[in-house]
């Protein structure tokens, strides 16, 4: 079973849920797909061997080029500019579609792999990491997802928001846990996340984190729209302190392991 953990709003507790769930169940594999800010290993503290580069192709223009301009005309992302006697390649804008090579009449374009990040991990934990200054995170999410071991219970920690890397991370999951907090911001962004999941057709339920800090509007929304509330994690000083130190709270509060197992039982 593949379970992804997502949220519209950042900082609601995705990583907390993903890590503590992974530690509460048997035979799990945890994949940190929040490649812009991967935080799972702050809690797991694993030495990550097996580092693999993630690269995307960028065009290299060779001497056969006669500056006809067809490549830059074709490129939807403005990654190529042809001037008299020169072709400029804006590598960060290139999506690697391969179109420029196809349209080049002189066979003057080849591709070179350019590293944008890496995937590291072992056995039951992998994380992706986007290099600083790079814009395109989706290929790294895909590379992490190649590590999925279907025989295990796979838990995916997704990035926040509703943009392309989120969809890449959550697509193909059997279930998605949406972590939110009982505040107006939490509710607004939960609604956005629900729309994403409806669109990609993944079943979902809600976990309310920091219960008690806000109001009841998240619960009312869930009730009205038949969205199951699977767990409530109270606003608790001890949980917050353990989080701040990078300690998964199920290790110090083992009664929560049972609750996470119950949650798994409810969605499997």
């Amino acid at each position, binding site marked *: 079973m593949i379970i992804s953990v997502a949220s519209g*709003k*950042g900082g609601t507790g995705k990583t907390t849920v993903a890590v503590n769930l992974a530690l509460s169940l048997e035979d799990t594999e945890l994949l940190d797909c929040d490649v812009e800010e991967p*935080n799972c290993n702050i809690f797991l503290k694993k030495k990550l061997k097996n580092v693999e580069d993630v690269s995307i192709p960028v065009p290299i223009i060779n001497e056969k080029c006669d500056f006809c301009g067809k490549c830059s005309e074709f490129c*939807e*992302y403005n990654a190529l500019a042809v001037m008299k006697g020169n072709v400029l390649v804006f590598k960060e804008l290139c999506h690697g*579609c391969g179109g420029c090579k196809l349209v080049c009449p002189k066979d003057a374009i080849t591709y070179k792999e350019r590293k944008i990040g890496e995937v590291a991990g072992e056995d039951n934990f992998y994380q992706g990491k986007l290099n600083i200054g790079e814009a395109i995170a989706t290929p790294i999410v895909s590379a992490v997802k190649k590590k999925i071991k279907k025989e295990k219970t796979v838990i995916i920690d997704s990035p926040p928001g509703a943009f392309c890397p989120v969809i890449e991370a959550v697509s193909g999951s059997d279930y998605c846990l949406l972590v939110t907090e009982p505040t107006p911001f939490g509710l607004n*962004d939960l609604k956005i996340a629900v729309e994403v999941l409806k669109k990609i057709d993944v079943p979902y339920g809600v976990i309310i984190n920091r219960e008690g800090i*806000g109001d009841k509007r998240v619960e009312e929304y869930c009730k009205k729209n038949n969205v199951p509330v699977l767990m409530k994690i109270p606003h608790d000083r001890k949980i917050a302190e353990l989080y*701040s*130190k990078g300690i998964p709270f199920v290790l110090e509060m083992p009664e929560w392991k049972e609750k996470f197992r119950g949650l798994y039982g409810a969605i499997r």
Partner: protein
Amino acid sequence: MEGKIQGTLWGDQMKQLTVISGKGGTGKTTIVGAFAALAGNKVLADCDVDAPDLHLILKPEIKEEKKFSGSKLAFIGYEKCIKCGKCYENCKFNAISEDIKIDELRCEGCGVCAYVCPANAIELKKRDSGTLFISETRFGPMVHAKLNIGEEASGKLVTLVRNTAKEVAEKMKKDLIIIDGSPGIGCPVIASLTGSDLVLIVTEPTLSGIHDLERVYGVSKHFGIETIVCINKYDINKENTEKIENFCKKSGIESVGKIPYNPEFTKAMIEEKTIIEYNNDPVVKDMWKKIEERI
């Protein structure tokens, strides 16, 4: 990436302050809301187009809205399609299935499929990616946007929000744009901060907060933008707060404010007020004074 804004005629007077955090949920939007109440002659821009929240506090009254198309989408004319499979073979984004169906969420609108199709059966059309709003709030003009669900052009929409905010500022003779950014370090964040005059990173004293601060500071440094830091909920772990202060000192970043954990912030949010309207928070006011002097 499209966010690079060239110097302009009025560029010398107008300043842009971008608020980001790396890690989500550290309090960016709450702080931008407070600045909205404190700053004088400004335009507000919500560049968290994925999951915008600033409107919940500022309750903008929409004056103008524009449809935004960030990228194209391939459409297959099945009456012409000969099922040769060339489009499927050439698509680098796995957006076309073997039985020749377009996956809208994966299609990046590159046009390769249309180019390789021997039957001329594929057409690229502009997709409806989102909406841009120019609004008025009780604290002045605000530019914001809504990205449609599953659309990929968040960087482009961020750039559009920023460019529109500049136009509004020019027209209304405002000298400051305050930008609410998104979490992370990728495309929308880069588009939110390139070309701004000052970046404020809002962090929190947790190990995740510190880790993400270091990464997102790497991005603002990469683009050569002056950066300051504020530590929210600094008293939840004072040891970590010290670590952040040491990091700032070592990196030559000014720490402009330490905000204690205070449930009043959430109460203000629930009442849809800024913390300034709610209880005139002195710590945030002090911090704004320091930032104002810098700008």
